[in-house]
């Protein structure tokens, strides 16, 4: 970026480049750090739920209680709340898996040694958004048939006929094309911006410490305190974005499964 960052704090690899993504060794271009982090996130979710349900009790202990709380939140709080009981329970495993997986991936953004979330790499939110897109369109087509589904998504109920030439392309654009794009960009940009903010305040502290003016040096402490405060904000954002991704999936599914008007 115009060479403006090249004199930043000593010992900090700056500016970061795409090379930072790669792991050394024989798997050089194929397996990046993000790939490994996604595997870890998947393993954490899988192992947690398997261990919690390995030996279920009628009166749950702590691990089982936590797993049941998470599932009940996904099932009743998100899926059932938005889609109604019947469809809600049917899609609850999908919604809850999304919730748990994205939450673990996002929280990696503030876990030491990871420090960046796989969601901050546009490739992974894109894959999740494509899956959501296939699921809500597939569910709609299975319920209403292709023509019925297209009618349902592109023609808003109660609109006058002479508005159709304007409404149908707009609704198609917003419901079929913009939705997955917005899903991916929302998750990506939130996590990416969060990573950026933490970086700005942490490196800003180093720059202030290294400045030639004596009065600026103590302000570096303030910058680092801000970095710590914003880490808590990032925790909130990480969990909120997982919730939001799950709830948007539920809302899209609900609009696909809705009865004909």
């Amino acid at each position, binding site marked *: 970026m*115009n060479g403006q960052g090249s004199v930043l704090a000593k010992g900090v690899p700056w500016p970061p480049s795409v090379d930072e993504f790669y792991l050394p060794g024989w798997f050089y271009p194929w397996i990046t750090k993000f790939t490994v982090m996604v595997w870890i996130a998947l393993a954490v979710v899988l192992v947690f739920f398997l261990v919690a349900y390995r030996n279920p009790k009628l009166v749950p202990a702590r691990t089982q209680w936590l797993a049941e709380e998470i599932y009940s939140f996904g099932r009743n709080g998100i899926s059932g709340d938005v889609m109604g009981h019947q469809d809600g329970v049917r899609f609850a495993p999908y919604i809850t898996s999304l919730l748990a997986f994205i939450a673990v991936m996002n929280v990696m953004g503030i876990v030491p040694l990871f420090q960046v979330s796989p969601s901050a790499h546009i490739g992974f939110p894109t894959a999740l958004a494509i899956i959501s897109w296939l699921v809500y369109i597939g569910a709609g087509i299975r319920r209403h048939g292709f023509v019925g589904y297209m009618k349902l998504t592109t023609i808003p109920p109660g609109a006058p006929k002479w508005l159709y030439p304007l409404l149908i392309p707009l609704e198609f654009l917003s419901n079929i094309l913009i939705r997955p794009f917005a899903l991916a*960009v929302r998750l990506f940009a939130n996590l990416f911006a969060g990573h950026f903010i933490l970086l700005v305040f942490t490196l800003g502290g180093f720059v202030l410490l290294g400045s030639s003016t004596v009065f600026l040096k103590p302000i570096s402490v303030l910058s680092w305190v801000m970095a710590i405060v914003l880490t808590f904000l990032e925790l909130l954002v990480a969990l909120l974005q997982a*919730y939001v991704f799950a709830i948007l999936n539920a809302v899209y599914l609900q609009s696909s499964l809705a009865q004909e008007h």
Partner: protein
Amino acid sequence: MNLAAGVYGSVAAIGYGLAAIGPAIGIGLIFAAYINSTARQPESAGLTRTYLFLGFVLVEALALFGIAFGFVWQGTK
């Protein structure tokens, strides 16, 4: 000509600041409406929370597009 002031580096940050005004007002309106409705009808808090987050993320997406496109069009001069 002797310039008294100049701008170096990227001015994209200023552009993003301008782009964030609209979504900021929108998010403010959404949370104001939620607080209003909860104050008038506290039992409805759980009922309207879904819509709160739904509206919030749809407006927030516009601000986030600003971040993403800032990088997408970085190379175009």
